[in-house]
C-alpha cells in the first residue's frame, strides 16, 4: 500500500541560515559596543579632533627640511642599521633555523633552538631596543642588536618551516653516497630551500628598514630620534618632511627587494610573504 503524501517534501533552502554564525556576529557586536564604551569616545572629542586634525595638516604643509644635516644623518644611520642587522641576523638565523628543523635534528637540538626563536619573536623590536639601550648605551649599536634579534625570530622560524617541508629523498640520496653531515646540508638541504630563503631574506631586509626608522624613538639610533624630537618640538612641517623621506626610502627598498627576488627566483614564482 502506498502511503498518501500528506505533506509536500520540504524544499531545501540553497543558503540555509547559519545560526552559529549569527550568534557569533551578535557577540561581536556586543563586544564592539562594550569596548567602544571603554575608549571614552564622544562626539565632542571627534569634532575637536577633526578641528585639531585640520590645524595639524595645515601646519604640516608645506613640508620643510629644517635640519638637512640631521635628516641625512638619520636616514643614512637607519639604512646602516638595517643592512648590518639584516646581514648579521640572517647569518645567525641560518644555524638556529637548521637546528630547529624537526625532520633533520634530534629533539635535544630542536628544543633550545625553538625556544630561542620563540623568545626572539615575542617582543616588538622597539621593546627589545629599550633593553639594548640599557645594555650597550644610546646609539646605532642598540638598534642593530634589537633588529638582529627580530631577524632571528622571523627568519629562524620560516627557515625551520621551509626545511621541514623539503623532500627527504634528496637528503637520503646524498647521505647514501657517504657524504659527511656538512655535505648533506650543503648539497641535500640548502639547494631545496634557497629560493624561499631569498624571499625571506629580502622581506626581512625590507622589514628591518621599516623598523630601523622607528627604534630611534627609544634612543637606539636612526631617523626615529630626529622624528620624535621634531614631534615634541611641534615642528610639524619638519615632521612631514621626515615622514615623506622615510616613505620614499622604504619604497625604494621595496622596489629593490622585488628586483632581487626577480633575479634569484624564476618568473612566476616570486611570492611575497
Amino acid at each position: 500500500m502506498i502511503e498518501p503524501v500528506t505533506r509536500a517534501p520540504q524544499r531545501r533552502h540553497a543558503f540555509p541560515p547559519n545560526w552559529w554564525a549569527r550568534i557569533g556576529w551578535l557577540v561581536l557586536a556586543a563586544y564592539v559596543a562594550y569596548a567602544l564604551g571603554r575608549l571614552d569616545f564622544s562626539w565632542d572629542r571627534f569634532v575637536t579632533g577633526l578641528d585639531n586634525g585640520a590645524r595639524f595638516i595645515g601646519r604640516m604643509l608645506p613640508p620643510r627640511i629644517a635640519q638637512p644635516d640631521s635628516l641625512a644623518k638619520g636616514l643614512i644611520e637607519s639604512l646602516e642599521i638595517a643592512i648590518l642587522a639584516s646581514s648579521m641576523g640572517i647569518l645567525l638565523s641560518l644555524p638556529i633555523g637548521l637546528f630547529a628543523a624537526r625532520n633533520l635534528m634530534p629533539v635535544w637540538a630542536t628544543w633550545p633552538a625553538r625556544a630561542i626563536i620563540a623568545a626572539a619573536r615575542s617582543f616588538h623590536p622597539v621593546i627589545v631596543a629599550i633593553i639594548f639601550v640599557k645594555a650597550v648605551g644610546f646609539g646605532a649599536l642598540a638598534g642593530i642588536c634589537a633588529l638582529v634579534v627580530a631577524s632571528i625570530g622571523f627568519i629562524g622560524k620560516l627557515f625551520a618551516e621551509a626545511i621541514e617541508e623539503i623532500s627527504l629523498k634528496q637528503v637520503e640520496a646524498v647521505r647514501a653516497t657517504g657524504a659527511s653531515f656538512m655535505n648533506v646540508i650543503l648539497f641535500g638541504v640548502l639547494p631545496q630551500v634557497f629560493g624561499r630563503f631569498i624571499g625571506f631574506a629580502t622581506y626581512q631586509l625590507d622589514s628591518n628598514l621599516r623598523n630601523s626608522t622607528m627604534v630611534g624613538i627609544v634612543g637606539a639610533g636612526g631617523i626615529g630620534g630626529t622624528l620624535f624630537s621634531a614631534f615634541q618640538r611641534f615642528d610639524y612641517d619638519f615632521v612631514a618632511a621626515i615622514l615623506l623621506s622615510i616613505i620614499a626610502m622604504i619604497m625604494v627598498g621595496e622596489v629593490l627587494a622585488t628586483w632581487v627576488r626577480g633575479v634569484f627566483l624564476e618568473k612566476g614564482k616570486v611570492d611575497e610573504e
Partner: protein
Amino acid sequence: MNPALAHVESRTWRRFTPRQRLARFSVYLTLVVAIVLSARTVEVIPEFLYDAPEQMRDLLERMWPISWSHYPKGVHDALVETLHIATLGTLFALVMALPVGLMAANNVVPNRLVNYLAKLVLVSSRSVNSLVWALLFVAVFGPGALAGTLAIAFRSVGFVGKLFGEALEESNRGTIEALEATGAPWSSRLAWGYWPQVKPAFWSIALFRWDINVRESAVLGLVGAGGIGMALDTALNLFQWDRVAMVLFSIFSVVVVAEIIVTQIRRKIL
C-alpha cells in the same frame, strides 16, 4: 671521436645565462659593498660594548625579583586596554579593508583607475609604521586608547586589504559566470559568488593580523597612545626595573596566549 660531435663536446653546460650571472654577481657585489660601507661608517662606540655584559647583569639584578604586587594596580587595566586596542583596531581595519580590497581586485571592479587608487591607499597605509600613525593620531585626538586603536586600524588596512584583494583576484571565475548567467545582480554575485570563496582566506588574514596587532599595540603607549606601553614608559622613566620586568612578563604572556588562541582557532575553523 666523431668529428661532427667535437663542437658539442667542447660546449660546457651552464645553468644561467650570462645576463642572469651578471645580475646575481651585481647583487652579491652590492651586498658586500653595502655591508662593508655600513660597518665602517656606522657610529658605534666600542667602549660601550666592553661593559655590556656588566650592564646586562646589572639590569637583570635590578629586574629581579619581579614586582608581582605591581600587577593589580598598575598593569592589569593597561593590559586589558591593550587587548581592546588590538581587537577593535583589527575590526575597524577589516571593515575599512573590505571595500578597498574589493576595489583593488581587477576581476571585481574592472576599472584600472579604481584599482590603482585603491592600491595607492593600501600602499600608503602600509608604508607608515604603526608608531608613526600613533604619533599622528595622538596629535589629533590627544593621548589615549582612541589614538592607539585608530593607529592599529589604519596600519592594518593596507595589510588586510592587500591580501584580501589578492585572494579575490585568485577566486574561481566559473562560479561568478554561473551567477551572472542567472541574472544575479552585483550584490548577489559578491555575497554568493566571491564571498564563499574568499571567506577562509579573509578570516585567516584577520587572525594573522590580530596576532601581529597584539604585539604592536604593546608599544604604542611609548608615544602616548594608550595600553600597556604607557605602563612600560612610566616604569622606564622612573628606572623601576622590577616593574619593567613585570610589564615585560605580562606582555610576553599575552603574546604567547594570543598565539595559542590563533593556532587553535585556525585548526578548528580552517
